[in-house]
């Protein structure tokens, strides 16, 4: 960054290439510019190779990557996963009638055809599929002799009113109301368990393909009074992948908008095209490298190409700006390119390093998807050093810039440097270097910080919306999920406590009694709707064994009777070897408070548990995983802020060597971080896997602006300028680029707001906000703070002091 001092000095104008000494400049510059064809050839080859690799990049939305696998809760879950059959992957398809009831010949025919088609889909665990039409759906009744029963749709079914009436009776005594059949008899469910591995192909289930097949069936059968609602984890993943494809289209939009902004700024087709080309090359390399390293693009890391492109654009614009000014003065394009490289390579490197720090800090969060994001972004930034700091100047040295544009740029610069030609906007910004405006800006900043902080205290951890939080609340999926919760006794927010016992001992009375006691304690908590467990089933089963008499509803302390329940119990409540019980806790929502209460009560219960050889373990189920994620995220939030601010402060100090300057640079960032949290409260967003990286990215990229602006101010003030003069020079030299960067970055990420994937939209909105507010902070609050923190006297003394030590000064 110290090179900025020299970068401010104008280089000699050299009109002819022959007059330029190619041995001038540092080693790096000579190595690159004296072998330009080789550099271009290398880049061309790299582009071809990585472009080919990039074409193989996979799209993925892995569930496991988004959870903190090292947290003990998740580790418990992963360890016991194969035994937890109730949490297997499945799809529920509700087929609803708009008018009348499901006891209708047309409805049952449609259901039968859909049922048959789904049965044939690859990946379906056929024997366990269940609907009104499957033979596993039976009714039973207690009689004097024992039990009577049959299939709900009898073999003799012929669609006649009499047989429809029989179906109605059978449904009523099947116990499937609320499970397979809605209580209002307006819909019924096809329950489709899925195989993780297709036995025919030996490959893992492809969620994207399966989901598309379901959509084809939905289109085929929906209509004519039939509505189809589909829920299930595989459908969420399928919808995410579909959304990801759609998001890739936003990339095109982002490119077009930033191109427009850049062209408006330069009015030069040639150089605009070059900058865009180099930035796209950077994205291509990045994706190619990711594919080569075996990474997939997931809904989180898909953000990175947008960032890389936008950062590339702003750095490219900076390079082009320099070259354009030199060419305008008459310097040959090759020499101009070298001059620009000389002036800006170090500044660009520092800025990119800051970005890299912002990304790298994310590695401390032990959630794979965030670590992947960090790696992906680091690769992207590394690539930018090649494409936009090296390749771009070289390409510009061949192609040059439009003569008109160069002349325009020079005119503008000359006009701006003459005192009376100040652009009104610059004059306005200059006001903040005066006492009253500076004081005002600082007070407003302080007020915002206090207000924002007060609001940010209400910031919640975790997902706050019902349904699948990955998708928008009004998405097709979440409307389907709402339909399911309305009509069926099935909450999608399930917290599972696992209870490990010795082999074949899972139905011992003391164990079941403890499970029952925990269940009852948990049921008292607000947000807990109900629970289910082997203990609860044993109570019902005891009534069942005793001719269905309700008075037998109790956990009987009799291991023989309890063991007998096992033979008829559904597998989701216990495992094959009867050594693992699952206590299902159905929650009203997955808000952080609800999850925290369940965790707290369970942990307190476990701490008091004294049963030998019985181990209560948290936590499986969507809510269990989410509880663990919340705990990790909450902890990571503080850690991450500590590291990112620590790194940024260190970098600033290394650059400025002045704690006053560090304060002036970092305080606006702090304000932005506080306001960002307040905005999250306002928008109803929680701190979660998706919003966590935003703060680090925002701070990491945000410090760029301060670095650009403050380094120039400091250099000029050390050279004897007043703050006002120094700030004006900073605005002319880097302020424009700061604005351009802020705007292009904000635009690039703002396109995400339209993503069908909820967390991408959240990330886009927050990042755009942070980029814009950071930009304003650097342009308004920073000079105002500088007025108080960096008074003129400071530099006078310093220059005197340094003057004493070093008689040969800059002047």
């Amino acid at each position, binding site marked *: 960054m110290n090179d900025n001092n020299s970068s401010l000095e104008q280089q000699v104008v050299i009109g002819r290439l022959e007059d330029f000494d190619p041995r001038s400049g540092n080693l790096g510059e000579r190595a690159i510019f004296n072998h330009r064809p080789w550099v271009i050839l290398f880049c061309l080859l790299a582009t071809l190779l990585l472009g080919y690799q990039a074409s193989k990049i996979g799209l993925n939305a892995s569930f496991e990557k988004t959870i903190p696998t090292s947290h003990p809760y998740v580790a418990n879950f992963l360890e016991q996963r194969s035994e937890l059959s109730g949490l297997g992957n499945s799809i529920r398809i509700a087929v609803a009638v708009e008018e009348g009831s499901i006891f209708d010949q047309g409805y049952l025919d449609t259901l039968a055809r859909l049922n048959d088609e789904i049965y044939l889909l690859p990946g379906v665990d056929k024997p366990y599929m269940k609907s009104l039409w499957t033979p596993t759906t039976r*009714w*039973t*009744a*207690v*009689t*004097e002799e*024992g*039990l009577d*029963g049959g299939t709900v749709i009898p073999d003799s079914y012929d669609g006649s009113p009499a047989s429809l009436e029989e179906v109605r009776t059978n449904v*009523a*005594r*099947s*116990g*499937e109301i609320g*499970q397979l059949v809605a209580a209002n008899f307006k819909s019924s469910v096809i329950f489709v368990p899925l195989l993780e591995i297709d036995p025919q192909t030996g490959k893992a289930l492809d969620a994207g393909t399966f989901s598309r097949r379901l959509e084809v069936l939905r289109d085929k059968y929906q209509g004519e009074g039939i509505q189809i609602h589909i829920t299930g984890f595989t459908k969420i993943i399928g919808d995410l992948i579909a959304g990801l494809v759609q998001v890739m289209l936003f990339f095109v939009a982002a490119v077009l908008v930033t191109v427009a902004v850049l062209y408006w700024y330069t009015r030069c087709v040639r150089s605009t095209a070059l900058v865009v080309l180099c930035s796209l090359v950077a994205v291509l390399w990045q994706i190619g490298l990711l594919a080569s390293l075996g990474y997939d693009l997931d809904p989180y890391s898909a953000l990175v190409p947008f960032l890389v492109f936008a950062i590339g654009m702003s750095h490219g614009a900076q390079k082009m700006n320099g070259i354009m000014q030199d060419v305008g003065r008459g310097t040959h394009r090759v020499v101009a390119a070298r001059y620009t490289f000389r002036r800006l390579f170090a500044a660009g490197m520092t800025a990119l390093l800051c970005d890299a720090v912002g990304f790298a800090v994310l590695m401390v969060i032990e959630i794979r998807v965030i670590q992947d994001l960090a790696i992906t972004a680091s690769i992207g930034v590394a690539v930018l050093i090649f494409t936009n700091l090296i390749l771009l100047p070289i390409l510009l040295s061949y192609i040059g810039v439009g003569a008109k544009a160069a002349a325009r740029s020079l005119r503008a610069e000359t006009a701006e440097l003459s005192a009376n030609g100040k652009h009104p906007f610059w004059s306005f910004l200059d006001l903040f270097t005066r006492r009253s405006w500076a004081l005002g800006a600082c007070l407003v900043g302080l007020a915002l910080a206090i207000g924002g902080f007060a609001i940010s205290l209400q910031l919640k951890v975790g997902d706050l919306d019902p349904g699948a939080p990955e998708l928008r609340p009004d998405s097709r999926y979440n409307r389907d999920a709402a339909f399911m919760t309305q009509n069926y006794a099935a909450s999608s927010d399930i917290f599972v406590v696992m209870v490990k016992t010795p082999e074949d001992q899972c139905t011992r*009375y*003391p164990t079941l*009694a403890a499970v029952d*006691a925990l269940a*009852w*304690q948990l*049921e*008292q908590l607000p947000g807990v709707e109900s629970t*289910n467990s082997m203990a609860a*089933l044993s*109570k*019902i*089963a005891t*009534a*069942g*064994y*005793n*001719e*269905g*008499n*309700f*008075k*037998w*509803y*109790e956990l*009987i*302390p*009799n*291991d*023989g*009777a309890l*063991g*007998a329940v096992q*033979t*008829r*119990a*559904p597998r989701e409540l216990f495992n094959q070897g009867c050594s693992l019980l699952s206590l299902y806790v159905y929650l009203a929502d997955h808000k952080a408070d609800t999850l925290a209460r369940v965790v707290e009560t369970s942990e307190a219960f476990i701490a008091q548990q004294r049963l030998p050889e019985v181990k209560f373990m948290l936590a499986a189920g969507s809510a269990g995983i989410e509880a663990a994620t919340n705990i990790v995220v909450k902890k990571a939030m503080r850690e991450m802020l500590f590291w990112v601010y620590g790194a940024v402060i260190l970098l600033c100090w290394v650059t400025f060597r002045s704690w006053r300057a560090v304060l002036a640079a970092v305080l606006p960032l702090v304000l932005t971080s506080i306001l960002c949290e307040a905005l999250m409260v306002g928008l109803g967003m929680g701190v979660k896997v998706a919003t966590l990286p935003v703060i680090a990215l925002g701070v990491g990229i945000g410090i760029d602006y301060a670095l650009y602006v403050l380094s120039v101010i400091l250099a000029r003030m050390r050279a004897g300028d007043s703050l006002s003069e120094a700030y004006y020079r900073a605005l002319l030299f880097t302020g424009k680029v700061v604005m351009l960067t802020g705007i292009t970055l904000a635009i690039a990420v703002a396109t995400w707001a339209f993503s069908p994937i909820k967390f991408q939209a959240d990330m886009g909105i927050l990042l755009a906000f942070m980029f814009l507010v950071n930009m304003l902070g650097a342009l308004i609050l920073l000079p105002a703070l500088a007025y108080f923190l960096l008074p003129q006297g400071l530099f006078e003394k310093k220059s005197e002091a340094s003057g004493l030590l070093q008689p040969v000064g800059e002047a």
Partner: protein
Amino acid sequence: MIGNFSFTRALLLTALLLPGWATAQSAATPQIPLLNQPALQSAKAQRSVLLAVTRAGERLVAVGERGIVLLSDDSGASWRQARVPVSVSLTAVQFVDAEHGWAVGHLGVVLHSADGGETWVKQLDGVRAAQLALASAEEGGDAKLLKAAEWLVADGPDKPFLDLYFSDRRHGYVVGAYGLILRTADGGASWQPWMQQVENPEGLNLYGIRAAGGALFIAGERGLLLRSSDNGQSFQALDSPYDGSFFGLLGSARGELLAFGLRGNAYWSGDRGASWQRIDTGVEVALSAATRLADGALLLASQAGDLLISRDQGRSFQHLAGPAGASIAGLVAAPDGSLIRVGLGGLTRQPRDLPSAQR
């Protein structure tokens, strides 16, 4: 899942005969914390499984799982939870006046309240009941009874009381699973095992006990009907009109008697149980509860939620309401005439004029 309780009686009997049944218990009788654990005050009490409801004067008292006892002084508009020293399922409750009442439940629990249900004291539990049975059998010297009593002790307190009948503040009976019956003559301060006075050689479950026309009647498993005409000194089996299980009884002072049970079966006797006539209920599921309304009409309920009404002391019933409502384990008329139902889904209250308006 609830639909899966398709278990046969045979399966349970098989389980009973498995060697583990008795021996595992005698090896280590599990500690049952529920017997000494006060019932948790729960916001979900009203939606918990409730198994019986009765009147204590103008007050309503409902009992159910986890030691829950709910009280209402405004005909069921609002409820509050009473203090109960145990956390087991309570199966039946009776008050002889506005203050004195008893509740029975699982693990052989008998509770007594002397303040209209506000507070309860445990008078008996399964552990003590078994010891009483053993002591009484040892005294009696009957080998068969002694063996049964030894089993009772070895099994631990796993047998529920299923019903009770008190004629006044002092005299009452509690009946339960496997023929368990005890009698008190001092308001529950002491209990006498009464198995040897009852003609129930197979030890069938006793589901209901009521007085009618000066006699005492017990109904139970597999059509068991017992009568005592000597003030409870001994109970003799009656000729039963039915093979299936009876779940309850309702008697009148004049000696009319209604017995009801499995698969909608209900029988009426006008001659203190000497002869029975079948009632056509039109219901296919088990009948679980019956109560007398203020105007003398009888109301009979099925587990599925059917309601039937009789205006001729039980000779015939008309169907009032279908199984659309929640399940019913017990019901009673509130002082304001509304109907209070309890079941697996908790409390429901039906407006006062529903039963009569239906005619």
